[in-house]
């Protein structure tokens, strides 16, 4: 059986691991790097985790230092029996920390998009055939509302906060939007690694909870002028919307009039918005104030 000394040692080691996890989360929060891994709604909960982790570590330390030997028992809880097993156990817990501290924090890019499968259209909506912005489907009402607003803009700004909804709305009414001017930013994605001057897609990852469910969304871009753009570079693209046939489907493509390299935004991913029309109005209010 484990004697009380080794239980104390285990407790101290576990306390250290828990504190290291708490520190790692605090470090990510400080560096603003949590947004590379999880959505803001979840990040709120993760930021709270250092508190229970710290309390757990504290309790273990109290037990290890002050606990009476007779009370330290390993009857129910299964501490690893052999040194090899404990080495494997703690190694497993230290591995993510090592990975986290040694490698720089980086957002998902083209390599992940290839594996996950890029979508060039917003597949949850059916394209509308009607000429006007009308939808009989009550569930598409929000997109229709948004499409009406977007249509009236001289240059359609695709705000990151409503990227997926704007993409959905334009995709749904792509025939009407043909020829409209649009401005959108994202990273450069190419299907094949080849020359970095050709056509690409301006892309973002849509994240629901964490990077496991990240879905890459991309709008095809025809650069018109030859321009040297490596994959994963962040760009702002402005140009006219065209509808092009590809693989038996109709996709939207931007005929670019300008492509400007930009810095990677602090929040590289996009998230769904509960009410995109409401968010649009707020963003507009904010933009007007800026002016």
């Amino acid at each position, binding site marked *: 059986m484990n004697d009380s000394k080794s239980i104390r040692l285990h407790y101290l080691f*576990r306390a250290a691991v828990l504190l290291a996890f708490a520190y790692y989360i605090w470090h990510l929060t400080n560096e603003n790097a949590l947004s590379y*891994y999880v959505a803001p709604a979840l990040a709120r909960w993760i930021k709270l985790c250092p508190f*229970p982790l710290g309390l757990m570590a504290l309790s273990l330390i109290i037990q290890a230092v002050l606990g009476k030997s007779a009370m330290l028992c390993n009857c129910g809880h299964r501490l690893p029996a052999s040194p090899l097993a404990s080495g494997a156990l703690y190694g497993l817990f230290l591995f993510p920390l090592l990975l986290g501290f040694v490698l720089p924090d980086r957002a998902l890019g*083209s*390599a992940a998009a290839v594996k*996950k499968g890029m979508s060039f259209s917003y597949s*949850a909506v059916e394209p509308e055939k009607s000429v006007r912005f009308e939808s009989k489907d009550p569930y598409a009402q929000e997109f229709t509302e948004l499409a009406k607003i977007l249509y009236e803009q001289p240059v359609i700004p695709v705000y990151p906060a409503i990227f997926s909804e704007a993409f959905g709305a334009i995709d749904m009414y792509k025939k009407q939007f043909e020829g409209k001017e649009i401005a959108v930013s994202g990273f450069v994605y190419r299907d094949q690694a080849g020359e970095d001057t050709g056509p690409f897609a301006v892309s973002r990852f849509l994240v629901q909870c*964490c990077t*496991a469910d990240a*879905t890459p969304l991309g709008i095809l871009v025809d650069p018109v002028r030859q321009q040297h753009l490596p994959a994963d570079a962040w760009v702002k693209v402005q140009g006219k919307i065209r509808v092009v046939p590809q693989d038996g489907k109709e996709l939207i493509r931007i005929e670019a009039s300008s492509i400007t390299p930009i810095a990677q935004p602090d929040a590289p991913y996009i998230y769904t918005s509960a009410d995109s029309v409401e968010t649009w109005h707020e963003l507009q209010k904010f933009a007007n104030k800026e002016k």
Partner: protein
Amino acid sequence: MTALSPMKIIPLLLPAALLIILVVMWLPEYQGLLNNEYVHTFKTGFIGILLEALPFILAGALLSSLLQVFVPDEVISRWIPKRAIPGILFACVLGIVFPVCECGMIPLVRRLIQKGMPVYVAIVFILSGPILNPVVYGATFMAFRNHPELAYARMGLAFAAAFLIGLIVYCTVKKSPMRWSAQREMGDMAHSHAVRGGRLTSVFVHTSEEFFEMGKYLLIGCLLTAALQTFMVRDSLAAVGGQPLGSYLFMMGLAFALSLCSTSDAFVASTFLHTFPAGSLVAFMVFGPMLDFKNAMMLMALFKTKFALYLFFLIFACVFIGSVLLSPWL
């Protein structure tokens, strides 16, 4: 059994320490070695899944410890209906009250079983809890704006499958399938109240025990999931999807490999809307929360291997048959 005395750890600690020093000293110089796309994708995926699960597993461990320290055994067995069918129905609606994700659920359920919850009721709760709750219903509804029937089908199939599996387990499993006998746990409970620093310390000591106990399975699950996500090209599996029933197998395989949270998987499913039949998307959304890499590992920790494999088979069979039967109405 080998004792774990400090003298015996030292021979292992020394090489480990040396290895850590080597890694810390050398890695900054050989960043190039690690600096390839795979490693970064792997890291971002792995840390993302781990961080996502962390609050839930902490909450589950904390709840389970609170139950252990503060709630007497009789209370729980008094709540649960004695007869099988009401018991199973009770477990199905429990998810509405406790909207916990599957990572938090397993430590909680383990404690509930020790406190006298029948195993079949616990299994129904594990299976239905992550799907039959308002948060997941809302998320599914949002993801399939044009197809609300898919959200209904998901809820319905999850209910039917959990109910059926609960009934089968009730009828066929008589011996305790738990990995650890209740006896050992009872011994532990007898002096769990006597820890230094009162009940609060005791709660947190137990929470950390649970955290390490379940955490190792979670970590292995996260590692495998992240590796799969890094190296598996989704389209390479899609070849299977061409066969008549292949799309069902493909979507269920994908759900198993991706280990998504049940609140977010509907959106991923919706990207397949025009590629695969609707029935297979329902299979994806019901199978994933019930069984995936991450929670298969944790179920293996909870139950004996033989029973766990039996349970995996039941889940697979029920979801597969159910979703195929449902497909004419979708």
